[in-house]
């Protein structure tokens, strides 16, 4: 097995699928020769040619529309939206056109498209490069939203996303691209979409989270363990649909839960997780489920983002609140 960081694992997933299926193709702004502003697609154009990996003019809506039309023609486009803040320009094509194609055509057409986009803060990027907009897409019917937290998952989830016949919004946290290396198998394997992962077992409280916050929660859990508190951590991996079964199984064991997300607090993935826990496991709860999240402000300018983004200390505080309820 090779050691890869998340960027390399994502690239490897695309390489595997480009080799396996001639209908897979990649396009977006600057993804060709230089391999994207984060070099995620570096080398792929050289390996697979300019017909399959190419730069587009700077126009997000057209990138989405191009993906839609190519999907109708039987291709499997991977369309990169350079930064998450630019998806608004393409939102019609993503959530109105691609996500509704199967429904509008009564199943005649599908949209086997992966929209890849970097997101998430903590890297002092420019405004609108870092927001966490997964809740926005997750609320749209007909599209899956996938957020890996580590290189192994990133590769397996991306391969599964490319093979999926429905559109997938695949979000890559900026702060995880180079964060660490991990063992990643060579060749093809998939990680099932819609399936959460228990990344740390524990008996006292469930911490449900995803993306970068898995690592924040892990740091908090390590601290808590020193105080004798055993936290179980669930990495959602897919924030739409949510794997409520894995969450319920955990809550039945721990009877307490918190949800940690980097995005603003209201109306997002955490709210949805809590609503579903209420529907399916309320009698197993000993305390209300709390959220640790960004405040309901716009995503802050770089100067204060480190305090805006949830920290291990805030996670620890929330865990203690539900334990002491």
């Amino acid at each position, binding site marked *: 097995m090779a050691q890869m960081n998340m960027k390399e694992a994502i690239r490897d997933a695309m390489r595997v699928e480009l080799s396996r299926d001639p209908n897979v193709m990649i396009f977006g702004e600057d993804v060709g020769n230089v391999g994207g502003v984060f070099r995620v697609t570096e080398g792929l154009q050289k390996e697979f040619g300019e017909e399959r990996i190419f730069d587009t003019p700077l126009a997000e*809506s057209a990138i989405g529309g191009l993906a839609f*039309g190519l999907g109708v*023609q039987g291709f499997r486009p991977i369309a990169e939206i350079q930064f998450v803040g630019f998806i608004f320009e393409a939102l019609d094509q993503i959530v109105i056109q691609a996500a509704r194609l199967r*429904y509008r055509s009564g199943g005649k057409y599908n949209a086997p498209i992966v929209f890849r986009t970097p997101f998430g803060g903590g890297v002092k990027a420019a405004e609108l490069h870092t927001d966490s907009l997964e809740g926005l897409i997750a609320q749209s019917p007909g599209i899956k939203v996938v957020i890996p937290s580590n290189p192994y998952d990133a590769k397996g989830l991306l391969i599964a996303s490319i093979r999926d016949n429905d559109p997938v919004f695949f979000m890559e946290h900026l702060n995880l691209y180079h964060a660490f290396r991990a063992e990643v198998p060579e060749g093809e394997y998939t990680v099932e979409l*819609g399936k959460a992962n228990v990344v740390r077992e524990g008996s006292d409280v469930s911490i449900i989270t995803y993306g970068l916050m898995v690592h924040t929660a892990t740091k908090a859990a390590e601290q808590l363990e020193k105080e004798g508190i055993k936290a179980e951590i669930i990495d959602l991996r897919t924030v739409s649909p949510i794997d409520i079964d894995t969450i319920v199984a955990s809550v039945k064991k721990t009877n307490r839960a918190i949800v940690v997300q980097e995005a603003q607090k209201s109306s997002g993935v955490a709210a949805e997780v809590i609503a579903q826990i209420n529907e399916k496991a309320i009698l197993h709860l000993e305390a209300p489920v709390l959220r640790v999240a960004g405040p309901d402000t716009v995503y802050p300018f770089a100067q204060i983002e480190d305090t805006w983004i949830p920290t291990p200390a805030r996670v620890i505080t929330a865990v203690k609140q539900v334990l002491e309820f």
Partner: protein
Amino acid sequence: MTRVPYEVYTEDVEALSVLSPDGEVINKDKLPDLTDDQLKEIMYRMVFTRTWDDRAVNLGRQGRLGFYAPVSGQEATMIGSEFALEKEDFICPGYRDIPQLVWHGLPLYQAFLYSRGHQHGGQIPDGVNVLMPQIIIGAQILHATGIAMGFQLKKQKNVAITYTGDGGSSEGDFYEGLNFAGRFKLPVIFFVQNNGYAITTPFAKQTASKSIAHKAVAVGIPGIKVDGMDIFAVITAVREAAERARNGEGATLIEAVTYRFRPHSLSDDASKYRSKDEEGQWSEKDPINRLAKYLEKKGLWTEEDTLRVREEAKATVNEQIKKAEQTEKMTVSGLIDSMFEVTPKHLEEQKADFE
């Protein structure tokens, strides 16, 4: 400093016209090569479509159709442009462009089902290369670029055609689509039916551009203006654009100047924004009368033919609307199952509330 020559964007472009309103050929060089049978077929389709449109308006008022955008007046642009294509060419329509879909192979009852808000309307039969009508004004323009790139990559000598109106030419997607098509030399035809109004907003309030055809200049593709009440001009323009596309020469923007005799939709009153005088002037250019005059002179069409086609169209519409009405209603469960190829567990559970 060098500037784009002033005349490039201030001089009007002449609209291609082949047939005078009296049915005389005024531009022999651009007369499309059509057999007598093809000419009669085109006339048949125009009369049929006008009758179907009349009936559809009535059916709409009776509540037997849902959203319906009338087409009378635009038969030359719709039928002419579709007739100029091959069966394998792909149509990406706007919401008014139902005739092109039907003449390209979509069964009429499915067009009615689409209007009635039934999913089966969008279940396009195999081998019919069309998308269902688009509601978002510019989205289909981008879909056509993607479909055209598909043809290009598959090395298929086919074209994608997409339709919008003069209002649609103001959308950002319009420019993005044209620019992509120019950049990648895509086999696509952007066909703008300039019927003078975006719902109620007149063309003069839509753009300061001298014409819509001018907008092609900015992206490096040809822009052509045609008389949209002249079916021969439309056929010639689309045939030439399709040939360019098939030869790998890329996209064309066609502006067809036309008129919708009826309001934008059944819920709109055209008398609030158009004069009787204006409507009268345009009805003198009626594309059906124009072709009829030409064909009558050639001994290919008579008033009796028109009456016969009208009766046939009425009977077909009656039979097809009945078929639409008898189609089993959609269900919420069916809707839920159409969201994904494999229905996720949470949606399976939500179905229970409706069963």
